């Protein structure tokens, strides 16, 4: 008996996957609406992507090619372990290349490479309720969603401007989907918000909070703002130090204890592809060794 045969395909049993798929269908029918689902215990702690993993498990097929990113990177602990998890339990092919993947599970980023039709982007969501920190009562926030009472969301943005002179919310920036539901796009940087109007299917899973929501392809996703303080998808004002890209979202990396720092693309796959194509940033290695088996 192979290791893979000890599990049902993609870890979850078929009844659970069926339950999650029903929630997904409902979520797709009502873009931005949070559908409750019976979240299962997963073999990882809450906060590590239990929601995303369950959604991925429910949509994966044996023919899929799976990619996991964590803050844009393919090689961080969280990304590596989730990728391995599905390699073992589903035996699906995995990749680090955005364009080769059919299902991409992500934590806190949307890949720089525009996604195509047929691809699925699965978000890990810590807190699905955009109104949570404004109105602590879940009964009340549900009512507010039902009656489309979203004035409170703007109170938060007002407070930002009053205190910081601009809308200081930089991640988990609230959006309105298809002119109806206000949605938390998970903690992606607001730089990624405009990308949410995309060709791929976007699914959101919050394991601890037991909510699933979705944005169908080509849906209208508008970031909330004021007329005199329009939405600004800001990023660090630097080019990538490795690949020289000026249009990507950057991570700040401290390189010494003397104030030295570099800004690099947070999307490692995108950055590597650009370097392979010959782009060089200010701090790029003068030559890169050929990747050889070793």
């Amino acid at each position, binding site marked *: 008996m192979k290791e893979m045969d000890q599990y049902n395909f993609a870890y979850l049993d078929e009844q659970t996957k069926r339950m999650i798929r029903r929630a997904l269908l409902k979520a797709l029918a009502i873009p931005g609406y949070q559908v409750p689902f019976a979240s299962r215990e997963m073999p990882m702690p809450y906060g590590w992507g239990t929601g995303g993993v369950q959604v991925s498990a429910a949509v994966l097929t044996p023919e899929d090619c799976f990619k996991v990113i964590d803050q844009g990177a393919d090689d961080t602990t969280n990304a590596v372990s989730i990728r391995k998890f599905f390699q073992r339990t589903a035996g699906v092919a995995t990749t680090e290349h955005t364009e080769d993947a059919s299902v991409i599970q992500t934590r806190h980023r949307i890949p720089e490479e525009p996604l195509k039709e047929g691809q699925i982007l699965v978000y890990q969501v810590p807190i699905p309720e955009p109104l949570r920190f404004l109105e602590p009562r879940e009964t009340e926030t549900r009512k507010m969603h039902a009656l489309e009472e979203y004035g409170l969301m703007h109170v938060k943005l007002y*407070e930002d401007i009053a205190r910081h002179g601009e809308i200081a919310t930089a991640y988990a920036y609230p959006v309105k989907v298809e002119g109806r539901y206000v949605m938390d796009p998970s903690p992606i940087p607001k730089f990624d918000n405009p990308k949410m109007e995309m060709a791929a299917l976007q699914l959101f899973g919050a394991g601890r909070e037991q909510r699933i929501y979705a944005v169908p392809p080509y849906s209208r996703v508008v970031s909330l703002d*004021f007329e005199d303080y329009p939405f600004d998808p800001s990023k660090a004002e630097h080019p990538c130090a490795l690949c020289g890209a000026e249009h990507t979202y950057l991570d700040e990396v401290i390189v010494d204890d003397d104030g030295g720092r570099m800004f690099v693309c947070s999307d490692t796959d995108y950055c590597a592809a650009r370097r392979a194509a010959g782009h060089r940033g200010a701090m790029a290695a003068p030559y890169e060794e050929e990747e050889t088996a070793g």
Partner: protein
Amino acid sequence: MIDANAWQQANPLFSVRGLSKSYGGRIGCADVSFDLYPGEVMGIVGESGSGKSTLLNCISGQMAPDSGEVLFDTRTEGLKDTRKMRESERRMLARTDWAFVHQNPRDGLRMGVSAGGNVGERLMAVGARHYGDIRDSALDWLGRVEIAADRVDDRPSAFSGGMQQRLQIARNLVTGPRLVFMDEPTGGLDVSVQARLLDLLRGLVREMGLSAIVVTHDLAVVRLLADRLMVMKSGHVVEAGLTDQVLDDPQHAYTQLLVSSVLQV
């Protein structure tokens, strides 16, 4: 000036018919009926447990009465029973044409949000999306309730009790409501602050032509604010009439007791 008899021909703004609410076997309030005309302030007085708050909660839509009608003169459809409205309509009313001033400002304010944000919330709830405009009307309203403009970004937790109460009033009146419910608006404030708040309230009510229903146990408050008075005891209205008439010439034994219980300094 307004014709002294004009109110008699006007349609009531707010009308309560046969309202009852009981808590199991106990009566909250029983068979209360009254009309409130535009620009009129009505006081409801009575001791603790007399059903004032139950009545106020029922007519302001925060509690469902067992029977009776609560009619409000809506802008589009005229007199309409608020109990038969959809919840969305009722909540819309509650943040546009109605206002509710709580006894404890902490119940009516968002303590984690700045004064400006508190005043602006109702504006944003009805669709204001221009930061500059919202801030201007917030500053304007803070001025009208005598809060210094440089406190606009402070949180209510940094305010004194009297300031919090004035902020709550500003927050409620910013959308220009037509009917204000007040539950002990001066409760918990010391007398000099009370006097200023009453002065302010009286000015705003006259200036904006507000109708108001003020629940209190403080007879001085109704003497200053209210045109008409309803006295409640054990859930029943025992006496009603013009304020001065009821207070100066109380007919019912309980009202006589109430009036004579006021301490004279």
